[in-house]
């Protein structure tokens, strides 16, 4: 190939160059700002991760899979996955091949940023470039891939139900400008390359377009204007990018290495949290997922709107949204980019100032520990902590104690006459100080009691014991795991009945701690296990969660009823759960028996 112009320059590259310079500056400044606002140890961790080959490979793999191929979206919805990856990956390939072409045919132009983008304007085909046909073909192929993605995007805009999305967000004015300029880029590129194809060469798409145009248009007259339009569309897109949701593209590339380095949310507005908020493309997946969404009035309190308000610094709405959420964690579980809606909200709550600070120093842990101490040969045995919630559902505690007694397990009750709360509800309210004090108090009691295993029948307790307590040497176990172990080891035997059970995954146990299989194994041993419509990590919160600060219990009926409808899709005889709070919440509105797994085990064992 040979160059058409000595200068290798034309004025039409200016819009593109201005846009590119702007967006690059913006991203670099933003990146420095986010990294600078990380706490010192996190920053150190981040820099160290960049020289750790193992993490680096994971970074590259994740960026490739998440940002270009959109693997997570594919798993969720094939059409949506194709739409995103065709545009992202196609665009990436066009840029890469563009650079390869420059490298091969005009290496002395490699330092010009715009040259690969407008390659076909500046170069002309000659006899020696048959080798280029291969690249021409690839270029046309990926352009076609992108165009198909854009076509799908247009259909989605008009008819979102087609993509299995019930609700999406309304784009803001800037979003629309970004959207339309993005849509315009590739058709314009096709036109520009089409008009130029008889000079620069082309392949099946551009060449054929060229001959079509040839029949009724003077091609060369149209060349320059279309190249200008193409460059302008690029320039506009880059210039509005920071003010649109498309900012998620560069932000996600920063978010992934931060996450892989182990950086976590510390502050709702700074550092990692800010990266999460800007990495949200407003895809709206979290709207349909949110259990609050069954009520129209709560749709604007879902995570996508939290991100939007955080970007706009709308303080009143941020507070309102932060306090309403149930912290069920479903938005976090389904989010394709890894925005942690629940953690963002807890961080926001933790900023609040209170004038009255709880003080538990008067609680005498010594006497509480004596109530449940092990002595002699019992040392290292099971300590059962029922927890506050179980006190409201005494049938669970009764059943657990009965199973333990029948199985011959020696145990002590840690809170026979009531104990100290595990601290999770306080933590959810963002009051880390008092929560920490409760954790210290409970740790003292457990350590002094001489227990070897801590058995819990409430997933809310279980999660905080696992995540925040340091009880090295003491096994922390949920009763579903404990029963599973008893069944598997043959210590207890469950009689199998024909009763159809559906299992409800409590949020704190499933999404919170990743325990899905043990309870199912136990239930399957006692009867026929059927699944709800949405289960495992997609399970729907019962609505009773302590996470919400502002929703009174009388305002949650619609959520509970919706969760129940989901559970009863395959018409089970009864509903089984493993959380005292779920149990009491479902009890209010269920049309069939609701039981804790302990009750099933107790009834069926012999």
């Amino acid at each position: 190939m040979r160059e058409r112009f000595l200068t290798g320059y034309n004025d039409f590259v200016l819009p593109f160059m201005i846009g590119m310079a702007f967006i690059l500056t913006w991203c670099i400044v933003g990146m420095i700002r986010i990294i600078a606002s990380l706490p010192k140890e996190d920053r150190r961790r981040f820099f160290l991760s960049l020289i750790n080959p193992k993490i680096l490979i994971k970074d590259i793999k994740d960026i490739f899979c998440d940002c270009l191929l959109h693997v997570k979206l594919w798993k969720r919805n094939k059409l949506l996955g194709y739409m995103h990856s065709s545009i992202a990956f196609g665009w990436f390939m066009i840029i890469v091949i563009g650079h390869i072409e420059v490298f091969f045919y005009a290496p002395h132009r490699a330092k010009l940023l715009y040259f690969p983008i407008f390659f076909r304007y500046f170069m002309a085909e000659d006899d020696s470039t048959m080798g280029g046909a291969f690249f021409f073909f690839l270029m046309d192929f990926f352009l076609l891939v992108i165009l198909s993605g854009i076509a799908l995007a247009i259909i989605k805009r008009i008819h979102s139900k087609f993509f299995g999305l019930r609700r999406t967000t309304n784009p803001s004015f800037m979003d629309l400008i970004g959207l339309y300029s993005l849509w315009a880029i590739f058709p314009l590129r096709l036109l520009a390359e089409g008009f130029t194809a008889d000079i620069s060469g082309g392949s099946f798409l551009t060449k054929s377009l060229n001959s079509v145009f040839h029949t009724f248009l003077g091609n060369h007259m149209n060349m320059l204007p279309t190249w200008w339009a193409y460059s302008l569309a690029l320039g506009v897109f880059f210039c509005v990018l920071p003010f649109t949701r498309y900012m998620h593209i560069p932000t996600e590339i920063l978010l992934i290495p931060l996450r892989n380095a182990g950086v976590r949310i510390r502050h709702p507005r700074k550092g990692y949290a800010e990266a999460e908020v800007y990495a949200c493309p407003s895809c709206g997946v979290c709207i349909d997922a949110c259990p609050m969404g069954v009520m129209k009035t709560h749709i604007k309190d879902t995570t996508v709107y939290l991100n939007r308000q955080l970007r706009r610094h709308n303080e009143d709405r941020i507070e309102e949204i932060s306090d309403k959420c149930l912290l069920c964690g479903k938005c976090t579980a389904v989010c394709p980019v890894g925005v942690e809606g629940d953690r963002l909200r807890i961080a926001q709550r933790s900023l609040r100032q209170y004038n009255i600070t709880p003080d538990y120093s008067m609680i005498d842990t010594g006497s509480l520990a004596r109530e449940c101490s092990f002595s002699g040969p019992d040392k290292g045995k099971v300590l059962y902590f029922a927890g506050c919630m179980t006190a409201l559902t005494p049938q669970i505690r009764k059943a657990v104690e009965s199973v333990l007694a029948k199985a011959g397990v020696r145990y002590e009750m840690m809170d026979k006459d009531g104990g100290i709360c595990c601290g999770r509800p306080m933590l959810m309210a963002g009051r880390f100080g008092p929560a920490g004090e409760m954790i210290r108090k409970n740790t003292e009691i457990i350590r002094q009691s001489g227990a070897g295993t801590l058995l819990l029948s409430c997933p809310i307790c279980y999660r905080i014991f696992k995540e925040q307590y340091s009880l090295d040497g003491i096994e922390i176990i949920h009763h579903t795991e404990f029963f599973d172990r008893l069944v598997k080891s043959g210590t207890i035997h469950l009689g199998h009945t024909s009763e159809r059970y559906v299992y409800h995954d409590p949020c704190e146990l499933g999404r919170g701690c990743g325990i899905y299989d043990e309870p199912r194994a136990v239930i399957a041993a006692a009867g026929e296990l059927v699944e709800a419509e949405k289960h495992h990590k997609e399970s729907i919160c019962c609505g009773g969660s302590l996470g919400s600060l502002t929703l009174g219990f009388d305002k949650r009926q619609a959520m509970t009823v919706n969760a129940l409808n989901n559970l009863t899709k395959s018409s089970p005889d009864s509903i089984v759960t493993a959380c005292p709070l779920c149990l009491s919440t479902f009890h209010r509105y269920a049309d069939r028996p609701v039981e804790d797994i302990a009750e099933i085990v107790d009834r069926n064992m012999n």
Partner: protein
Amino acid sequence: MDFGFRIAPSSTINLDKVDRTRFERLHEIEPDVYKCMACGSCSSTCPAGRFSGMSVRKVILALQRGKEKEAVRMLKGCMLCGKCSMVCPRGINTRHLILSICRIYNEEEQ
């Protein structure tokens, strides 16, 4: 609908000589505080009661009567477990009420 009778407006007279400005502020944020019928369900289920004498019922009464010191002493024992809000027959969101009290009232000025 006409039942042939109406409910008379409240004729409660408050003879307490206490400064109620803070309670009024609390009432503005938490209108439900007047819904409490002092049934004591919250107190009987409260795990903190055993250690500190915490009782939402008593806190509400104490604040109404201006005995802020007593209320604050009890509140400092609350663990925010939320059981009280689950059992309240009047559907009061006691947990949010407690958090609001912790913001409006002060420990020191007592």
